[in-house]
């Protein structure tokens, strides 16, 4: 059911990591968090954030429910699931190995 190649780049990794630490957040908050924590270097493609969230939800990595904010507005809040945490570990290992490989190339070239 989960098609990894369908998840673009590192977006799932970032989303999972943020949800794992700050848990339940709505889509806008996720985007803001990513930007804030990376000093605006990583700006989320907002157009691809929501499809990614829905795909991850279908994959069972995150779950969503409707919640009400302090300003009494209905938002769809996402949180990571057990399967999502496992996936996160995998993603982190994968990401580390890729960056390590890229570093190695940069240093030797």
């Amino acid at each position, binding site marked *: *059911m989960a098609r990894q190649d369908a998840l673009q780049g590192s977006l799932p990794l970032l989303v999972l990591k943020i949800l794992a630490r700050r848990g339940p957040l*709505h*889509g*806008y908050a996720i*985007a*803001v968090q990513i930007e804030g924590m990376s000093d605006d270097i990583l700006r989320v*493609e*907002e*157009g*691809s954030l*929501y*499809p990614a*969230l*829905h*795909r991850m*939800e*279908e*994959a*069972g990595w995150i*779950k969503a429910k409707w919640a009400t904010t302090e300003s009494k*507005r*209905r*938002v*769809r809040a996402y949180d990571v699931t057990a399967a999502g945490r496992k996936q996160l570990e995998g993603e982190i290992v994968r990401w580390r190995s890729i960056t390590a490989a890229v570093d190695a190339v940069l240093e030797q070239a």
Partner: protein
Amino acid sequence: MSWFSRLTNAIRPDRLDRDLEAELRFHLEARAEEAVRRGAGPQDAAREARLRLGNALHTRETSRDARLMPWLESLLKDVRFGLRMLRKDSTVTAAALASLALAMGAALAAFALVDALLLRPLPVDQPERLVQLTTLDKRDPHENHTFSYPLFERCRQAARGQLDLFAISNQYPEPVVFGNSGGREEKLRVLYASGNTLPALGTRPALGRLLNADDDLHPGAHPVAVASYDFWMRRFGGDPAVLGRWLRIGTRQFRIVGVTEKRFTGIEPGKRTDLWVPMMMWSVPEDLSSPDSTMFAVLGRLKPRVTAEEARPVLQVVYANFLRERSAEFRADESRAVVDSFLHGSLRVVPAPNGPSRLRETFARPLWILAAVAGLLLLLACSNLANLFTARALAREREMALRISIGAGRARLLRQLLVEGALLAVAASVLAAVFAAVAAPTLVGLLSTTDTPAYLDLHTDWRMTTFLLSACTAATLLFALLPALRASGVSPSDALKSGGRQSARTGTLRPMLVAQIAFSFVVLFVGGLLLMSFRQLTQVDLGFIPKGVVLVRVEATDPNPFSSSYFVPAARVAALQLVDRIRELPGVRSAALCEFGFFSGGWMTDSIRIDGRAPDDDGVAALPASPGFLDAMGVRLLEGRSFAPADIASVPSVVLVNQAFARRYYPGQDPLGKHFTFAVRDGDLAQEVVGVVKDVRLQSVRDPAPPTIFVPLRRLDSTLAVRADGDPWSVVPLVRQQIRGFGHSLRDGDVALQSALVDDDMVRERLLALLAGFFALAALALVGVGLYGVLSHSVVRRTKEIGIRMALGAKQSSVVKLILREIAVVSSVGLAIGLVLGRLLARPVESLLYEVKPGDLGSLALPLALLLFAAALAAVRPAWRAARVEPAIALRNE
């Protein structure tokens, strides 16, 4: 989340849509608020938010696709659209649905029968390892399926290493009385079987035990019976207390020791067994030791890793030895050729995964033919629908072109049209299943005869479902794919440029019409042959008058049916008295006693010896009858005299012979007063011919009368043949009463109408004629409707052309000719193809026909005339409409 949520989302996408909308709206608002907090104006803020989100519609659609099964959702859209299109043309849809449902139902019913009788293996373990033994004599083209018990025993012993052989009897209804039932007699279907039969079949008991090898040891010493599951349910409601119950078959007591498992419905498709009884309990013990009593079917289960081929040699040796021993009993003057052919008989081991079946032998070919005809009917219905879809697609050409030009993919259009077809096919399948559920059991009922009710297990299983599903798919592809391919292949620029003028591409309709006419010709042709054959059969002069005669068994109640008390001279006198009493009953025209009624399946064969003639072994049919028999049966006496009461005791015994006998044994002579003898082991019995009667067909309407003699009846327990003035059933109660009140330990037994026995002989032909007639009518209706539809369509399309022609001075008659030429061309090509196809199918049909030849002028002319008539009828209205085209109006339409 799972496929299930995606499935429900696809079926009900509204909620999903609302959620996605709300989520994105919140995002935009939050982003805008943030911009406002940073000091932007509200309009700039909203704009920035929208820019950062990008294409909101695309985002929503992509998120949406992640949450449901996009293909399913668009398929559902197609279904809804298809339903709307079908509803738009509700009359046409209803007609199409009805014809397809009818054809599919017929095909499904035919399949149900073919499957139950011919294809489905027995419900036992590894049915593919079951075999049947048959023998073949060079002089006889038919395989023989019956063995004597001694031969079976030897085969079983010799081939123990290769296969597990068992013998079963034919199954007859027998009178059975259960203990504690107040002596009520029930007719139950009892099958005598070797003890190892059920274990060898791989059947398990539902209750108690099955028969086993220990029940195979000593004749008469195993008074046990096993009930079938079905019988246990029907008669005892599944009560486990059935174990240990006593029952009486004839004069012998049996105890029920077990019940077979539920899935095992019997060994012979077409027949239900109530009770399984050890072969050792066969009612005539002599049959188990006599090599002359060949009456048992021998089947077996191959041992693991043994093939039928490997099992054959050892059995062949046994059979050859057996034949050699038997040949010692030939008379010394027997012809060399007969002995040789006898000695070279061969034994075969034939696969029998679906058991032996007499019903199958009779009905295999007719059922295949019916299945083929039903298949043709289905093709016919499909081509009709294909025409309809093509016509509809042509009418929607502009819609298609428009949709393609605004970006709909061809595949999408193709799917839309196929879905429309599939909807129709699925609806037709449902109706067809209902139709078949009613029709199939009715057909089985038609296979039944008076004393052998046919029973076929017709429950719906995966085989039926698979068949229906594949028929449904095949039908959809057949009738919807081609039109859909054409319609979706439309070139938008051409279709739109032509400015509403519809292209005249009716060409593809013609091959379909040709196919329709060809198929319907074949159906009509085959149907006509079968109907004519049945008509011929019903017109055969049987040599007697079955109508009005009722046969009543007069049974012995004496425990020993061979008791001499039924044979002594006093009994013979009593027999005459009984007949006299019956004759005096009101409503009875004439009556007589006989050993067998005609067509009751029984006669005695005797070899006769005539001085000065070489002996032959073909034998003559001998029918014992009392005085008055000829009158009662309506057999004409041609010469000499009939039996007189005094003939019972006359010496030499007197006989009546039929024409076939006279022709064969006394060619060119007057048989009256001639003498011959019966060849029996304990001395020859002299006979004198006193009368010659007309030939009477004894067993089958098809077979001419064999050489037959009538001899005086010499026993009391026999059959009363009573000819009534009116309805023969009306005299039955009186006759029964007379028999019961007559004394001499007699009682009244089974009753059968002589005419019903004759009808039973034609059960196959009647069934075929009935169904063939039904199929022929359906085919005629289908082809008529198809032709009409296409012709009307073509007239509408050619309205402008016709208008121009008429404006240029064409007469109405030439316009009509235009239409008629179209139908004439199509019909003649179709008929030519139909003739070729018909000839192909006629070959397997031929052997079922009686005095009808597939090449006859009549058999060709009738379907031809009917088809042309249907075509003409279908052409009337379109032609009339074409002739009425007003040039001015037709051209103004532009």
